[in-house]
Each structure stands twice: as C-alpha cells, then as structure tokens.
C-alpha cells in the first residue's frame, strides 16, 4: 500500500495522462477540498484586508479575529430560506447557479500545480480553460433572465456584454503568450498548461519578462481583462450594488446565492492561475538562474516551511495580545491552537521528502495568492466604471493593445 502510494508520488506524469482513474479521482477530491478551503480563507482575508485598508477591524467576534466567520456565514446561508420569485422560470432559476459552479470548478482539471500535480494535461489546456470559464456567462445570463425582474435582467445583459467583449482581449493576450512557447529548437508551440510552464523553464525566462516590455504588456492586458471577466471591482457592473442592488443575483438567497459566491471566488482563483501559468512561470520558483546552485535550492525549498512558521508565529503573537478577560479564554486557546497547527504544518514542510514535493504547489499558490491580494486591493481603491466606459476600455484600449502586442511578439519571435 505504502509502496503503491510512493510509486505514484515518484511518477513523472499526471494521473490523467497515465490513465490512472484512482489517482485522478483522488486529485479531483483534493482540488475540490483545497478550493473550498481557499474560498473560505479568501472570504476571511478579503474582509480582514479590506477592513484594515478602511481603518476598521472587520470580523472580530466569531472565533479569534473572526477566523470562524466564514464558517458561520456558510451555516447561515445554508439554513436560510430559499426563496424563488413566484413569476420566475423555475427550472432555469434552479439550474443557473449550478452551471456557474460547475464551470468554475471544471477548469481546475487542467491547472498545473506542479509538473505532475494536475488532474490531467490536455493538449488544448489553455483553450479548454478559456472555453469552460466563458461558459459561466451562460449561467449568469440565465440567472438574470429567469428571475423575471428588471435589475437582474440588466445585470445579466451587462454581464454578458462585458464578458464577451473582454474575452477577446483576453484571448489575444493568451495567444501572444502561446506564441512565445514556440520559440524553441523544434519550433512547435503548445497549448498545454504544463507544456507552457516547461517551455518557460526551458527558455529560462518567465513570459512576463520575455521580449521586454512585450510580455509585460500582454500580461497587463490579461490582468485587466481577467478582473472584468470575473466581475470584480472596478468592473463589477453586473452586480453593482449601488446601481442594480445586486445585479444578476438580486433574487437569489440562501444556498443558491452561496453557489454564486463560491463560483465567483473559484473563478477568480482560476483566472489567476491562468495568468500565473502563462506569464509568471507557474510552479517555478523565482530567480532559478540568478540564484542557482544547490545552496539556493535548499534555501528556496525551506521557504514554504518558514512561511507557515511565520504565520503560526503571528497567530501566537495574537494570543499574547488577546485581552486577559475570562470571556476571551476560549478564543485565546483557539488562536493558540490555530497557531500551533500552522507551526506544525510548517515543521512538517521542513522534512526533506515533503519539502521536495510540496515546493511546486507552494510557489504556485503563493503566486495565485498575490493575484488574490490584488483583487482585494482593487476593490478597496477604485471607483466603478460606467458601462460605456467599460466597453470603451475593452474595445478601444485593450483590444488594439492586444493585437499590437500579438503582432510585435510574432515579429520579435521571428527576428530575435
């Protein structure tokens, strides 16, 4: 049994490619679990970070520093009454959030957390991700239409127009990155997510910094388009609270609403992982050549453990800063336990066999987390675009820039 697991851990392909159904299922379950945890963590982090940007504390009551707040929210949403408007189209209303959630989760099949840490490696990986994530617009349109109400309908129309237009700029940016993968000896590029990262490894440069500044511009186009694609501030018009109350999900409540919420956050993680894979070297650690050599390898491989130890330490500092009142005893113990768990995870990550295998996943997640922070930062800083301005940005700025970058990348690829 142990040998079986070990033999798998040392394999060099993804379970999908190896045709190993069992491990593929395990991977799917792990990704599902990890994604749910990530969404919960993201919910908490968004509230806390946004709160601290806005000179307030955020959730503080449920659990130490509000750590259990997302769980409390989830329970609240699950036991809330599930309201369906009487004039709504029942079936479409029911199926819309499911479509959104399924599309948001399906894309993770091809996300490479490491050279072997993906469910499968598809020949059309990027195309698959873009295609499936573009299906979520169908769910949003249906949700808006089925509610049979004016605000959701306007939200749905805005959303469909917005997502369809930004997909084009997004696709152009992606194509210019895919072009870069073909700059090798054989001259054949690839759409496979793992292949893209491997060609970055082979070319010894992250595509964001290739043909400076072309790669960076394409990356920027994608970074803007992906915010619009996920309907987040400053492009959150489909759910603009002050205009359309809540946009396409105005009429949704309880569990169904929480599905939209889940889908929104996992879509954010999905597009961020596309950006990370295409431009920021996926699972590759930073400075693989500037700081090369076995010493640096060891130093970088220690970073995951150090990060977790640091988080645990922060939690423990929080323990000492807790009020000494008996009311807070349970919370203090809880926070201490949380810190200890984080510290133990950190220590576990120092073990050499774990250290080697976890590194890819750590760097990938760290890069995605950076994008998640950007999302929160945007939300705290920017006002919202108006609809015509949004279209103007999409069609008159991002699209020409995307085409220009594509052409210049092709020229640079031929000449250099």
């Amino acid at each position: 049994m142990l040998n079986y697991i070990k033999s798998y851990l040392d394999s060099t392909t993804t379970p999908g490619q190896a045709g190993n159904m069992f491990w593929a299922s395990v991977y799917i379950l792990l990704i599902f679990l990890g994604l749910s945890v990530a969404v919960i963590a993201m919910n908490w982090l968004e509230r806390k970070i946004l709160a601290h940007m806005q000179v307030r504390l955020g959730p503080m009551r449920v659990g130490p520093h509000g750590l259990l707040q997302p769980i409390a929210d989830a329970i609240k949403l699950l036991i809330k009454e599930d309201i369906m408007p009487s004039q709504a189209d029942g079936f479409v209303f029911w199926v819309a959030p499911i479509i959104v959630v399924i599309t948001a989760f399906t894309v993770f099949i091809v996300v490479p957390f490491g050279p072997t840490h993906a469910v499968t490696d598809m020949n059309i990986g990027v195309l698959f991700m873009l295609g499936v994530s573009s299906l979520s617009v169908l769910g949003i349109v249906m949700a808006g239409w089925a509610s049979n109400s004016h605000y959701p309908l306007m939200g749905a129309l805005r959303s469909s127009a917005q997502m369809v237009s930004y997909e084009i700029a997004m696709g152009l940016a992606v194509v210019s990155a895919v072009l870069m993968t073909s700059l090798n000896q054989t001259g054949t590029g690839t759409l496979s997510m793992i292949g893209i990262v491997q060609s970055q490894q082979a070319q010894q440069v992250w595509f964001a910094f290739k043909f400076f500044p072309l790669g960076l511009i394409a990356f920027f186009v994608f970074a803007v388009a992906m915010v619009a694609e996920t309907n987040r501030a400053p492009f959150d018009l489909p759910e603009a609270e002050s205009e359309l109350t809540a946009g396409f999900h105005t009429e949704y409540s309880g569990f169904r609403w929480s599905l939209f919420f889940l889908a929104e956050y996992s879509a954010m993680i999905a597009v961020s992982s596309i950006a990370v894979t295409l431009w920021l070297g996926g699972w590759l650690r930073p400075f693989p050549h500037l700081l090369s050599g076995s010493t640096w390898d060891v130093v970088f491989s220690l970073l995951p453990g150090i990060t977790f130890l640091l988080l645990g330490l922060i939690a423990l500092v929080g323990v000492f800063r807790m009020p000494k009142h008996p009311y807070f005893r349970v919370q203090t113990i809880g926070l201490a336990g949380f810190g200890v768990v984080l510290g133990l995870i950190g220590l576990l990550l120092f073990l050499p066999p774990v250290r080697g295998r976890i590194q890819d996943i750590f760097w990938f997640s760290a890069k995605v987390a950076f994008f998640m922070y950007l999302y929160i930062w945007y939300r705290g800083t920017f006002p919202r675009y108006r609809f015509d301005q949004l279209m103007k940005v999409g069609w008159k700025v991002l699209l020409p820039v995307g085409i220009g970058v594509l052409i210049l990348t092709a020229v640079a690829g031929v000449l250099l």
Partner: protein
Amino acid sequence: MTDPTFHLELQEHEKTFLDSNELIINMGPQHPATHGVLRVILKLDGEKVLGTECVIGYLHRGVEKIAEHRTYTMFNPYVDRMDYVAAVSNGLGYCESVEKLLNVEAPPRAKYIRVILAELNRLASHMLWLGTHALDIGAITPLFYTFRDREEILKIFEKYCGARLTTHAFRIGGCLYETYEGFEREVKKFLEFVTPKIGEYEELLTTNRIWVERTKGVGTISAKDCIALGVTGPVLRASGVKWDIRKAQPYAAYADFDFEVPIGQSGDTYDRYIVRMEEMRQSLRIIAQAIDRIPEGPIMARVPKVIKPPVGEIYHSIEAPKGELGYFIVSDGSTQPYRVRVRPPSFVNLQALDLMVRDQLVADVIAVIGTLDIVLGEVDR
C-alpha cells in the same frame, strides 16, 4: 406598469432601440443608493435614461403643520430632524428667523459660537456627502475615512450640547450652553487633524482616472437652468454663479470673516465635487478665524420668557451645507406661529434631477443623486 403617478411622455425622437417597450424600473424606495427613501421611477431604453420621476413623501412627518401647534421654543428641536446631518444649520436658521421676528439680536459671543458650530456642521455634512457619493460611484474606502473624521466633529458636538446628531444647540436669542472647558483647544486640535485628511480624500479621488471619467461631464446643468429651477448651494456655485448667502446677505457673524466662495465652470459632477472640497477648506479657514477672535461676554440676549412675537411675517434664509435654507414665519401675535414654511435646499435641488440625467446612463442617475446631496428628511419634512 400602471402607476397613476407616472406620466412621462416619450418625445418622437426618443424611440427605443428596438421600438419595443421601454424598460420602467423603480429605483427605491428600498435601494442602496437613493440616500434613504427616495423613489425614482426610471424610464429606460436599455441603459439610457429617457425620463425620470421622483416620488417623495415616504418620510413625511408634517413638520410645518406641527409648528402651528407648538410654541416657538417648543418647535426648535423639530427643525433638527429635517436635515439630520446638518442639524446645527437648521437650528441656526430657525433661531435667527424668530430673533428677526422678535427684533432681538444674539450677543457677539453667541454669534461666534454659532458660526463655529455651523461651519463644523458644514464639514460634517460635506464629509458624509463625500463618503456616500464615492460609495455610490463604487469607491468604498472614502466612506470609512470620512466617517472616521466626522466622528471627531460629532465628539465636539456631544461635548458641547450632549447630542451628536440632532443637537438642538441654539436657543432663540443666543445659545443655552457656554463653551465647555478646553473647547477652543479641541477645535484647534481638530483643525490640525483634519486639514491633511482632506488632502487624503483628494488623493484618493481627484486625480483618479475612473473617478474623473465617472464624474466629468455627468449631470451637467447650466447656470441659467439652475437659476430657473431655484437650485442653490454648491450645485449652483459649481455652475459658475457666485452666490453664497454668507457673503451676499451676511448673517450671524459671517461679515467678520475672510473667506472665498469657490465656484466651478461647467456645472458637472466633478465641478461640484471640487467646489465642495474647496468649501471644506474654506470652512476650516472660517473656524480658525472665529476661534482666534471669539469675544468674551454673555451668550444669551434678553428674550422674554414667553416668546410672543408681534403680528407680522418674516423670511430669513441662511446658507446651509446643501444650499439656501429659508424659514418663512407668519406670526399672529400668539405664542404659536400661525404658519411656518421651510424652504429646504434638498427639495428644491432635487427638481433638477430629471434635467440632469436625461439621455444619460443608469449609473449616472446614481452619481447625480449623490452629487445633489439630498437628505430625504429634508425633502419630505
């Protein structure tokens, strides 16, 4: 929708894109961005606004009618409930009107206290406006910054008269309360505290591309239209009319101070934003001058215990944060006013909404409602 209150007619050239039914949506009274219980019926072609109709009265309490059954003194706290974010200005206007009717004048020290509190209140009102306006346009952070700083003002109010919002700070004939120990020091400290904060707000918004795009050229109203509609306050000044009652017909102690009246040119939302920001700075200037020169002396004029103004009528107006706040009081010689008519700036300014949002987009309606700075308590009274 068959709403009896709705009688917008489409002009011939305003046919919708598909010639199909135009969309009619109810914005409010339960809507996050209508600042309370304003109901705006929007007639839309897709996102374009073909016409609007405001339905008001959801917060009507009959303040003017109540006045006819209260003595002059008893009615004083009621006016605080009209524009509840600028209660001091309401009280100031009412007290000065009755004083004018009675032919008494508040002592200089009382006038200075009134100016300081009224200007602090103007700051508080503008801060609330800025926060909610930015929130409407989608910037959620300025709201918390402005509320943090507005809190300091409310603390001063609380220390002075015990109430934070509906202060009832003034009485007919002057002020009831002497300033508390350390009032001047605290106000000065507040001035030092708040001056960089205004820069902070401006840093977040004034040069922010999205903010400029969202506000420039939105909800433009010309000076002529403003005057025709009776629009006053920062909205009028942003259209280029230099009309400020503090300068034009100085009341309280405003004649003693040196301050500018900021005006805009194009009369769009961005200009109104700039004008209000500048007004906040001017308010700080006035407060600084007043706190330096505040005279000693009594704070209450000799007013009879039972206020019985002579038969007559009076109209007196002040520059409230939102515009010209006027009181028309008719006295029949008894202890109760025969009629009190309030000219609320929000109510009059709200009339301009339809003119400002025609042919613009839904998102602009929100921006314009925000920039008009209405308080529904005052609109509905």
